[in-house]
């Protein structure tokens, strides 16, 4: 058994894009989603990425007799879209799950920022996602990765309290300083929670730079890549390669050779013998934590700053965020399934990402993922939808009061009854 490890983890997520929702629609039409765009985009990516890459991974796992392992985190929003628009993708993930060499991680069901907004909502979404994974793939997730690898000490504690022993996050330079991300660490305030930190340089070599012909290292081969991994982990334990699953076939087109690269990589690594592939939960069982990591302000894997400003950096995003999480309490009282569903979709981090005004170093990435022309349009559209949602929520809440009054009326003696009607009249 090789002493060193490589941990491959892929994020699968598709946002539930909103339709053009105008002021005139508020209070009249409560269908918020652009079904056409969602379906078209999902089917395209399924054809270009999910289906071919899943098939290839399955083949690689069988070929290498269980020595090749990967991990996935599939957001609930993506799972829902698969079920609606491309159920064959679910089947192919299920086939991967049955090999036993694929770990499925838990996250917030709607790929949300709930970890920053509401503890109760966070808990609710984590449990919802856990249940979905159990039902679809028959495995219970034991490792956690938060939306966009957002992490802080406080979030780590919460995650541990929800029953997870392993969590993934970014090896952010400003947190790590001189320390290497290539070890297992633990949470500063809850040492029992093990942390796996993304090696962003090696991850981005595949996810961002692979097809870039002006990159001096182009073209990237499995051998060349392995030599870098070896160099990076000369004195270290584990290299964590975390990336969007859409890297394969979507961000990096099939023509770039990304599939061939991934086909060659497992064999190259295994025959070399320095590294073995592990899943996140295996990694934290195998390697001892070397130190704790103190993260006071939340970090993430996004942008140069590796913080949460891609979603909460400007006043528009903060306003939308505050407004949506101000509803949590009322919603738990109302407890209506339809409202819960829409509430989940409205929390998807992507909606906040579209409102981002950082159009400098990472503008390219932002633009690529954005269906709106400007952050202002994204904000207006989102707030219009949220206003309609608020109306529905308030109406349901008011209806409950009426119900309660009616119950009271039934119970109450005649005298009281007249009193109640009086107050209603006054209104």
């Amino acid at each position, binding site marked *: 058994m090789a002493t060193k490890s490589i941990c491959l983890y892929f994020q699968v997520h598709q946002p539930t894009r909103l339709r053009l929702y105008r002021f005139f*629609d508020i209070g009249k039409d409560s269908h918020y989603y652009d079904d056409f765009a969602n379906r078209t985009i999902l089917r395209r990516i399924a054809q270009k990425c999910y289906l071919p890459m899943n098939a290839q991974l399955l083949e690689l796992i069988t070929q290498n007799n269980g020595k090749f392992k990967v991990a996935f985190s599939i957001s609930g929003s993506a799972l829902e879209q698969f079920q609606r628009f491309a159920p064959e993708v679910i089947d192919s993930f299920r086939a991967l799950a049955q090999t036993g060499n694929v770990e499925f991680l838990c996250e917030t069901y709607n790929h949300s920022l709930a970890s920053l907004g509401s503890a109760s909502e966070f808990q609710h979404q984590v449990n919802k996602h856990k249940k979905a994974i159990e039902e679809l793939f028959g495995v219970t997730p034991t490792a956690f990765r938060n939306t966009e690898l957002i992490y802080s000490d406080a979030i780590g504690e919460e995650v541990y309290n929800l029953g997870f022993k392993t969590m993934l996050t970014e090896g952010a330079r400003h947190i790590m300083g001189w320390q290497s991300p290539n070890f297992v660490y633990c949470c500063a305030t809850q040492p029992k929670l093990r942390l796996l930190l993304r090696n962003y340089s090696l991850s981005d070599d595949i996810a961002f730079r692979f097809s870039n012909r002006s990159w001096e290292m182009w073209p990237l081969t499995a051998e060349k890549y392995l030599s870098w991994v070896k160099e990076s982990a000369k004195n270290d334990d584990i290299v964590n390669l975390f990336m969007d699953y859409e890297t394969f076939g979507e961000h990096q087109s099939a023509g770039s050779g990304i599939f061939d690269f991934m086909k060659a990589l497992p064999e190259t690594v295994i025959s070399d013998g320095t590294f073995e592939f592990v899943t996140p939960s295996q990694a934290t069982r195998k390697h001892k934590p070397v130190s704790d990591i103190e993260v006071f302000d939340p970090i993430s894997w996004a942008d140069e700053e590796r913080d949460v400003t891609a979603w909460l950096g400007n006043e*528009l995003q903060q*306003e939308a965020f505050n407004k949506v999480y101000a509803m949590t309490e009322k919603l738990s009282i109302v407890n209506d399934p339809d409202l819960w569903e829409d509430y989940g979709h409205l929390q998807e981090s992507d909606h906040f990402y579209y409102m981002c005004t950082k159009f400098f170093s990472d503008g390219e990435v932002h633009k690529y993922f954005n269906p709106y022309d400007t952050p202002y349009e994204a904000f207006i559209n989102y707030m*219009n939808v949220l*206003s309609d949602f608020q109306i529905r929520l308030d109406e349901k809440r008011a209806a409950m009061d009426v119900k309660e009054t009616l119950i009271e009326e039934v119970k109450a003696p005649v005298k009281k009854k007249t009193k109640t009607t009086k107050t209603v009249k006054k209104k």
Partner: protein
Amino acid sequence: MFGWEFPPHIAGGLGTACEGIVKGLAYNGVQTLFVMPSASGDEDQSATTIINASDVAVDTVSESVEEYLDKVKFIHIGTNMVPYADPEEFSRLVEEDRRRQVKDFSISYGQKYKFSGKYGANLMEEVARYAMVGGTIALQRKDEFDVIHAHDWLTYYAGIAAKELTGKPLVIHVHATSFDRGSVDNIDTRVFAIEKRGMLMADRVVTVSDLTRNIVINRYGIDPAKVVTVHNAVDFSGRENMQVERGVKEKVVTFLGRITYQKGPEYFIEAAAKVLKRTKNVRFVMAGSGDMMNRCIRHAARLGISDRFHFTGFLRGADVQKMFALSDVYIMPSISEPFGISPLEAMRTGVPSIISKQSGAAEVLKYAFKVDFWDVDAMADDIYALLHYPALADFSAREGYDEVNTLKWNGATAKLKKVYESVVK
């Protein structure tokens, strides 16, 4: 009469006003020839005869081209107005246009010029060409008219050229001034120069409000004796009020117009925040677009009221009527508004209106609520009162409706007719 646009193809309120004026004049027995840069042929010509300047060739100068050029030499303007170009882009555009113009001008005599009639990058060039064509038309039709009437700075040169060539009296009509388009220390000096020249050359200057009259007198230094106010009116004939099913059950307070500095959008936002502190039963809508829109969106977000403060973007046609029909209170907090027709439309729809004292409409509307544009407390007070005291809202809606129905172009143009008579010898 020189105009720039005429319904149905209009970009601003100028065309609508011109239509009201020619119809009103016809009612008062005054015939008009309406010259515009680019007519489409579907204009309503029942009250006037439309002359399309794009159809007229500049080849009938009776004396000599030199003399004509001498008279109208001021029209050689080489720069254009491009509102939002950066310096590099601007210099490129200017350079490009200069080359084109030199070429075009050399062949333009004896040829027709196809005007766009829009407010585009080559606006200044079109203004100059329009003057040349205007002069030609005036000469051609010398015996058909007694007074020259030019609407807004775009047509002043044409008016001046016509006066120079025919010797007939010139009335210029000021619908807006440079000071209503930019702040006092940030006006377009080229436009200002044209405006001032037009006013100086004119025998009478007609302004749409006393507010504008004061600007003409004080800022342009025009002799008060020749500046006359003829308030705008509005033509509602053939307009049915729209019935719209409301989606939101809260009251709706609406701002509708260009979201620019002069319209005072930020005062509206501040007032909205104040009202929202008191009551939640209200939504605010800012309908329209403009260079301040993004800033306003951020402003509302910063105040934390974006769930109650909505932006619709630019509204077209029926959506404008729909917006009025959905509103409970209309607000026009303009910092400087020569007249402001929108509150009249709101009141006609039965929506009580709050307007700034710095608008011309405030001079004629008795039943609109008037506040200083900067007085957000008063604005919030009035909004709150109109939302919560049904008697007040009903009263102002009813009286306002009757009031705007009395503001007819027939009356306004009778006054205009008197102005004409005073200059015709």
